[in-house]
């Protein structure tokens, strides 16, 4: 089922996801590799400690913004 055709975006969005047969782990890793090659990031190395998940997520977002600014400037 490599090609699917739809009359509208709504019909496309409502269609069930087409699951490619094969190893999910390998597909996942390939997908992440593609993402990294398109949008490479270089985070600081080492160990960082947080009191909550939210704090960890904010730190990551802030590093991401800083990196993005560096790439743009």
């Amino acid at each position, binding site marked *: 089922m490599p090609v699917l055709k739809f009359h509208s975006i709504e019909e496309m969005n409502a269609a069930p*996801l087409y*699951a490619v047969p094969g*190893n*999910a*782990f*390998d*597909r*996942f*890793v390939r*997908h*992440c*590799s*593609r*993402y*990294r090659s398109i949008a*490479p*990031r270089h*985070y*600081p*190395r*080492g*160990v*960082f*400690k*947080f*009191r*909550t*998940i*939210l*704090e*960890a*997520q904010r*730190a*990551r977002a802030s590093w991401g913004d800083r990196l993005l600014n560096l790439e743009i400037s």
Partner: protein
Amino acid sequence: MERDELLRVLREFESEGLEYVLIGATAMGFQGLIRATEDVDLLMKATPENVRRLRRAFRASYGEDPTIDEIREADLLGDYPVVRYYPPSGDLFFDIMTRLGEVASFDTVEAEVKEVEGIRVKVATPAALYRLKKDTMRPLDRQDAAALRERFNLKDD
């Protein structure tokens, strides 16, 4: 994400007997729901011995990176239940958690074992992932929750 690097670390986790469960996007990937991520989210049992196992597994995976010693029992079992480790090489990093607020702990997250290249990996079930993500503030988690619900035909409790 480097396939060999991730497999090497997961192999060391198993070899050291680390008590953990994968959550987050990496767990979703194991469950066949695939989106890109840069990190491996790890919920681990909060015991001193388990933290020592984690350090040994990272040392075996990343050589003698001295920063691994900064992953301490006192932190993970105390005021810092979330520790992020960026290895000196490679392109993935680890979010290591011993508590998820009041939401869940290692003992309460429903998990199953997946096998990849002979390595046994403990992964949160789709229903457990959905419960972890559905009520969080982050938009990405809400998107994940919606995708999990649709893909696995999940219902709210």
